[in-house]
């Protein structure tokens, strides 16, 4: 069934249609929050809360954007609220990617090291900038869409993404970041 049809049913109170929609977009929301928080437990909590807010507010969804974009918008606002309330980012460097290097121990060690340095580099970018960067790099949203999701001007989105890339490059090159 098409997303539009499922949305119509979900808005008229069909729980099963809404469940299908949420399950279809689960990996988008979970993946986005995981890259943002870098903590699996925190990601699970935020994903569940995002789904809860989507269920409660499904009738308010006007269909001006894709359903996944709406979910990402809810997740972004939720993340911002939680970070503001708790005053920290929960950026524990724990496992994000399941490494499957087989029997090649050397390769596994190298991959793990590379992964850790990438995680550290991503974590070094301030939250608001990282949100814009993740949305652009991994989800290929346009600057305009990101501006809509994060409620900020397009110019700000552009500068946040540029800053993130330069910071990432700087940290990965082992240089001193220019904050």
């Amino acid at each position: 069934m098409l997303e539009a049809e499922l949305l119509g049913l979900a808005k008229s109170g069909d729980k099963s249609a809404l469940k299908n929609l949420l399950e279809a977009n689960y990996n988008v929301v979970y993946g986005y929050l995981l890259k943002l928080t870098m903590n699996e437990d925190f990601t699970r909590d935020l994903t569940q809360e995002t789904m809860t807010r989507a269920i409660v507010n499904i009738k308010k969804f006007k269909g001006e954007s894709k359903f996944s974009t709406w979910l990402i918008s809810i997740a972004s606002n939720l993340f911002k609220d939680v970070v503001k309330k708790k005053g920290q980012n929960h950026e524990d460097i724990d496992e994000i990617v399941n490494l499957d290097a087989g029997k090649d121990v050397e390769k596994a060690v190298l991959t793990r090291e590379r992964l850790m340095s990438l995680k550290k580099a991503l974590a070094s970018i301030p939250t608001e900038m990282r949100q814009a960067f993740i949305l652009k790099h991994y989800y290929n949203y346009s600057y305009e869409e990101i501006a809509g999701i994060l409620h900020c001007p397009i110019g700000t989105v552009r500068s946040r993404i540029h800053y993130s890339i330069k910071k990432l490059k700087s940290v990965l090159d082992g240089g001193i970041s220019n904050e």
Partner: protein
Amino acid sequence: MSKCCEEYEDILIDIYYGETEMSTEIKNHLENCSNCREFLNEMEGLGDQLAIFDTDIPIDCSLVESAFTSVDQKEEKKRNIIDLLIFMSTAIGIFFVIFVLAYKGYGKYLLYGQISVFFLAPFSLIAFLKGRRLKEGM
């Protein structure tokens, strides 16, 4: 690195993400500037490195299910609060009416009313059961 190159870097990032097109001016600059060529190569390398986080995520249906349960619980809690408020306001209203009637000197009639309710209330059970049967479609 000249300031000029820093400006080109920003444009190259936009080109990399498909936000703007590669103009002839940029092409010419890239041909003559090794720094910017290197920057573009590094951008592509960075993209390859960051692909490590782009893994398949198995769907956890229990999490979606928990979200629905959480919403149901919140709605039930809300309904219970509304029911409690209706009950309390009705009780206060009845108490207020009784108090006013007693104050105005209608205590005797209140007593008669109370006795009537006491004896007639069991008959309301018939209507209640009938209504319940209708609701259950029996």
